[in-house]
């Protein structure tokens, strides 16, 4: 286990370094720059040039990269030249919206997808199984944007149960309002992700149902469902845990759309705005931190795998 952890940590660090180079270079491909955005359409070219010099965007790329990574290694993710706010502070503030949104969406999708997915597998080729299957296909096919719009119209505009958009101006200091404003977005996000997850749970369970060890278990007198619950689910859990790790990344991407539909001041909205303003110092820092989060989850998933599956612990 120690060897595994050391090797896995080295891989983690190498991935993060590669990501930092990729993020930096890809963002340089964007046309347009922040100096132009700040100066607008009435400033003189000389004003734009002096702004560029002040922002440091006229320096060689290698120097800009080294400055950035040097700062990151010292724990400083930089400061936006536009707002004057530090990247980590603003990301932390936005995460108070996006983290609960993604966490609740994740929880909802697991709570719905796992039992329904197992049920769909057990009821495979029966009416119930088909209904769940078709429902999940529909959930995958519907665009998140559309689902969000419909939910907002039904539950906010018609029924007036929940707010249609926004987040309370005082944030979590108004906990009831904050929770209420996250309900519809979380459900929207969970529907899309839950449908995908359900398909994976169903196929993983189906895969296990045909295994020899389940036939053996049934030969000892267990029912099909009993054998599945006792011996099968642990095996089916392996691919599902891997998928869950990937789902977090997918949820963050989905959050960009959902936050736009519900006008939530979260990470997705912030990234869109910062890219629009060509606030590259901010975008780099934010994307690197998010990449780090996803890589960390990948790390945890691998560790979880070894805990769930004793065979992995022996073989390496």
């Amino acid at each position, binding site marked *: 286990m120690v060897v595994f952890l050391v090797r896995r940590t080295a891989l983690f660090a190498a991935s993060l370094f590669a990501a930092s180079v990729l993020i930096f270079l890809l963002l340089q491909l964007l046309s347009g720059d922040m100096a132009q955005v700040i100066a607008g359409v009435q*400033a003189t070219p000389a004003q734009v040039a002096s702004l560029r010099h002040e922002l440091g965007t006229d320096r060689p790329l290698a120097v800009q990269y080294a400055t950035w990574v040097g700062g990151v290694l010292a724990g400083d993710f930089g400061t936006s030249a536009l707002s004057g706010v530090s990247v980590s502070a603003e990301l932390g503030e936005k995460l108070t919206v996006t983290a609960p949104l993604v966490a609740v969406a994740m929880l909802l999708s697991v709570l719905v997808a796992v039992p329904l997915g197992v049920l769909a597998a057990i009821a495979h080729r029966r009416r119930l199984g088909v209904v769940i299957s078709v429902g999940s296909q529909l959930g995958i096919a519907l665009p998140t944007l559309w689902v969000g719009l419909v939910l907002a119209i039904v539950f906010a*505009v018609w029924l*007036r149960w929940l707010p249609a958009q926004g987040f309370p101006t005082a944030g979590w200091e108004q906990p009831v309002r904050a929770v209420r404003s996250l309900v519809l977005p979380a459900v929207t996000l969970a529907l899309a992700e839950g449908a995908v997850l359900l398909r994976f749970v169903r196929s993983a369970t189906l895969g296990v149902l045909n295994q020899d060890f389940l036939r053996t278990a049934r030969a000892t007198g267990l029912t099909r469902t009993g054998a599945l619950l006792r011996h099968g689910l642990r095996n089916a859990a392996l691919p599902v845990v891997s998928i869950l790790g990937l789902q977090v990344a997918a949820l963050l991407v989905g959050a960009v759309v959902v936050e736009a539909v519900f*006008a939530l001041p979260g990470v997705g*909205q912030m990234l869109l*705005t910062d890219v629009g*303003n060509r606030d590259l110092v901010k975008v780099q820092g934010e994307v690197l931190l998010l990449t780090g989060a996803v890589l960390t989850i990948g790390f945890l998933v691998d560790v979880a795998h070894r805990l769930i599956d004793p065979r992995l612990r022996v073989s390496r």
Partner: protein
Amino acid sequence: MIRVRRLVPLLLAAAVLAVACSGAESGGAGAPAADTTLDVRLVLEPTSLDITSVAGAAISQLLLDNVYEGLLTRDAGGAIVPLLAQDVSTSPDGLTYTFRLHDGLTFADGSPLTSADVVWSYRNVIAPESKNPNKADFAAVTGVDAPDPHTVVITLSRRDANFTYALTDRAAAVLKQGTDPATLAGTANGSGPFVIRSWQRGSSITLARNEHYWGQPANLSGVVLHYIPDTTAANNAQLTGETDVETGPDPTLLSQFQGPDFTVAEGVTSDKFVLGINNGRGPLADVRVRHAIRQAIDKDGLIRVALAGKGQRIGSGVAPTDPWFDAGLTSIDPYDPPAAKALLAETGFGSGLDLTLVVPNIYSARIGEYVASQLGQVGIRVRYEPVEFATWLDRVYTKADYDLSIVDHAEARDIGNYANPDYYWRYSDAQVQQWADQASTAASDAERDGLYRQVARKISEDAVSDWLYSPTSLVVLRAGVTGFPTRETNSRLDLAQVTASAAQ
């Protein structure tokens, strides 16, 4: 929900009491409450609060008149009127302006505002190292002086017919002498009727009444400006009462606001949706091709399709808010596809022409698609490319790497751009440049307006651009909100006069 239901009778009782106490003034239709806050939907959030060095209409929309004030301002009808100055006198040669400030002017922190603050602010604008994006507005200014605490004298190097207008705009905002520019991005200490209470980035900015205001205090105790870019989310917010006012609604969705609960107020704007044509490039350098493009586009149809009729044709680069607007110019290059085809055949492009149309993706896709389809019908094959605004700034505005482009020129009185040969239209005409030059130094408004009208006619006859429309400014108000501005609301939004009775 429950809290609101309990509140309503209470508020009604309070309103009745207020009416009873104030005597016969109110007609009983719900008196304006003194401590009302208003929730307003705006579209674009400012990137910074720094009015001295960051461009963008969102900054002036939020801060001008509300937080920062200039020597002059514009009233609800667009007329230039005094603000910090109580009067202005101009020397006969038009080179010296003398302003007498009001007595008792103060900043929001309670400190007095004197002529020294005006001098400090305006000298920063004209300084060689100035980062002010509107520095050009003060190009003629050579000196700003304060002979005494109540007097400001501004000297110009030449007559400037647009100078008093510039003094109503953002270059003229007065800041407290010695303010550290580094603090301006996130805080503001202006002399206006409101102060910035809080900024929840990505979501809202809260204004609170300036209790030290030197003039008539604001009616509202506070205003929450909700930045909601998505039109559907904004409509839902207005329908559910989460906002009291919705600016910039999608004009094709206004039917939702019929009935007694809402009113839709209309006003004029300085916005001009311009189909920019790269006059320096290939076939577009031929004036006949440009005329063909103009004649191929049915502007009335576009206004119906994209704006549900809420806009007007302008015929040149002048908005209906500009004093030199001439509605007669819309008769130049009328919609006539056969004539457009004939012109193209004459220039040797009868078999067709391939052009790119680069459009910032902040505008409705309906506009670009409509124009592309109209041009397609006369044989101009258009490759429609929606891009981010920053990309547009770089590619079209700075490098002129485009054939056609659609952008909203929101600045008022900007016809002078057509006299700049380096502007992204790449149009150079000595006559236009001479007229524009004479207009900017004209001795009277009448002379100036006449010259600008000549420029407007000439650029239309030269088909420098096509001018698609000037949209109507729309504001959806819930019943009980009055005094909300309707003119040029994208760049200026004076909230001090707004009143609101309690929500139903």
